[in-house]
């Protein structure tokens, strides 16, 4: 196995709030090799966005926040770096795309300047050169008439076009890793597909690794090599994509897959549901966070946090599950997709 590009070890992000400590990320470990795509899936409040920002180093220890554990990016410990050194990573080594392209572009700056600035800051390009590169990048992300578009303000572009601009700015310095936090949630279905296709093709072309964060299992499914499922700040399952869809081992993953309506199913078929509601991050249940909603839960599940164990047959890709009573290996035959 090659040296991973990203190696996260027992990462914990805790916000200290008046209501008590919120363990947004609670002991997550994961690895990602260069050029691969990892999907991180979870419902709102699962900690997936905070995980992305902590990996990036945008959230770091300070007043009100404690980060522990280790994030190693191409051998460098992100959280041990001085702020100025960490900033030098952002752009050339790791970049981020945010959920809402309406708010992630500065409304009073022209489109081109968002990209220009990164080029001149990190690559020390001259004005002219930066301008040419900007137009090239806009063309590369599929924006028609890039020269004209560069001079426009964000509000003059559609949502999909804006997200392309955000991606172009993220890619400007050729990062090794792109963290995309719900990049398509705010967009229409048809546009959503275009953006995901774009990220996939850029990743293929430049060998860039991608962490694709989403609430939608199916959206991640078609693009990721591996999928990690989060619940209540922890990883509950992490496996090759086909295994997650074909033979999920964690009851939560299984229930999540089953509760999404499927195109192939007959109309008016009742959907299996997950009863109850997600845990309160300030006051999580003891033991397995999913136990209160889990039909399989027994006393042992409420005892202590279940460890993330590899259940894959020897020699196969790791299939890690944090469950004391996992589903049978081939119990549910869930078709890929809906």
């Amino acid at each position, binding site marked *: 196995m090659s040296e991973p590009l990203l190696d996260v070890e027992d990462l914990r992000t805790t*916000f*200290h*709030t*008046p209501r008590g400590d*919120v363990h947004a990320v609670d002991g997550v470990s994961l690895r990602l090799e260069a050029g691969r795509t990892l999907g991180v899936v979870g419902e709102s409040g699962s900690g997936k*966005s*905070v995980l992305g*920002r902590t990996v990036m180093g945008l*959230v770091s220890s*300070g*007043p*009100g*926040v404690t980060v522990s554990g280790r994030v190693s990016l191409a051998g460098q410990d992100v959280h041990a770096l001085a702020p100025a050194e960490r900033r030098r990573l952002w752009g050339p080594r790791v970049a981020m795309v945010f959920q809402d392209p309406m708010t992630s572009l500065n409304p009073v700056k022209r489109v081109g300047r968002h990209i220009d600035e990164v080029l001149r800051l990190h690559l020390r390009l001259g004005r002219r050169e930066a301008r040419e590169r900007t137009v090239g990048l806009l063309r590369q992300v599929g924006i028609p008439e890039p020269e004209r578009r560069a001079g426009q303000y964000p509000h003059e572009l559609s949502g999909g076009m804006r997200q392309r601009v955000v991606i172009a700015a993220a890619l400007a310095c050729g990062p090794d890793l792109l963290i995309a936090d719900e990049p398509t949630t705010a967009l229409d279905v048809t546009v959503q597909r275009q953006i995901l296709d774009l990220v996939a093709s850029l990743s293929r072309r430049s060998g860039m690794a991608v962490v694709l964060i989403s609430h939608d299992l199916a959206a991640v499914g078609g693009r990721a090599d591996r999928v990690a499922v989060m619940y209540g700040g922890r990883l509950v399952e992490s496996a090759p994509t086909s295994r997650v869809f074909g033979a999920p081992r964690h009851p939560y993953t299984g229930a999540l897959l089953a509760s999404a309506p499927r195109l192939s199913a007959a109309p008016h078929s009742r959907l299996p549901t997950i009863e109850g509601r997600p845990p309160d991050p300030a006051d999580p249940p003891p033991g397995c966070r999913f136990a209160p909603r889990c039909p399989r839960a027994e006393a042992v599940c409420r005892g202590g946090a279940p460890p993330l164990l590899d259940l894959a047959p020897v020699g196969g890709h790791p299939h890690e599950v944090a469950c004391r009573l996992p589903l049978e290996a081939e119990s549910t035959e869930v078709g890929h997709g809906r």
Partner: protein
Amino acid sequence: MSETLTDRRTATRRPDLVAWFSGTWLVVLAVLAAAAPLLPLPEHVDLTRSLTAPTLSGPDPASGHLLGTNAFGLDLFARALHGARSSLAIALAAVALGAVVGGALGILAGYLGRTVDTVVGVATNVLLAVPPLILLIALATVLEPNARNVTLALALLTVPTMVRLARANTMAFAQREFVLAARAMGASGWRVMTRELLPNVLLPVLSMAMVLISVLVVAEASLSFLGLGIQPPAPTWGNMIAEGEGRVLEEHPHVVLVPGVFLFLTVFSFNILGEKARKRWDTRSGAR
């Protein structure tokens, strides 16, 4: 994410002590002011009764003049408390009047729109076309300077702010889906305004009222200071401070400092509490 959470923490923890102090000061002041005529205080207004009292004496509890006397031998503590009576009563009455009138007009204009909105809007703009203090001076030129007229003038000053605030909030809430939901259930316009909008508009209006009280206390004091408000020897903080103009100030600073400190603490307390209220309740400021 991290910033929001930290902010919430520091914001809830820090100013509580200051807020408690402010609240205590206002309560104590209000109680003393209300009870001032009943308290055994030295003379505060009648010059013929202070002929024997020392003039311009400094603060000295032993002399019976806790905070000293002014140029006519009138007791400053008594004057400050009686000044608080008129200041607080005028400011509160004016704000209440302004909130009721302005709030009602704002909701009507915001919900009904069209002609009502245009008329109310132009009227508001006319009132706002004259800077507040200038409007007060203009009114003071032609009106008898008594408590009622000062109150009415100050109330007029708050109406435009209240109209704008109520109108902006009404328009924001009217867009919210619960108003649509109420209409979908057959609610009439009157019901929507009184049952759906009013409760939501009330909180920002009340918190703005808190902020405006301090503004009005200052406005009333300014008017008195300029000799256009309630006339001496009847005490207000403004005309008490005006007594200290010129040389008096350097030789007997307490003449200015006593009413000055009362004014400062009161305005500060209203500012602190008003800001706290606004942070908690105001969703949308009425500023243009």
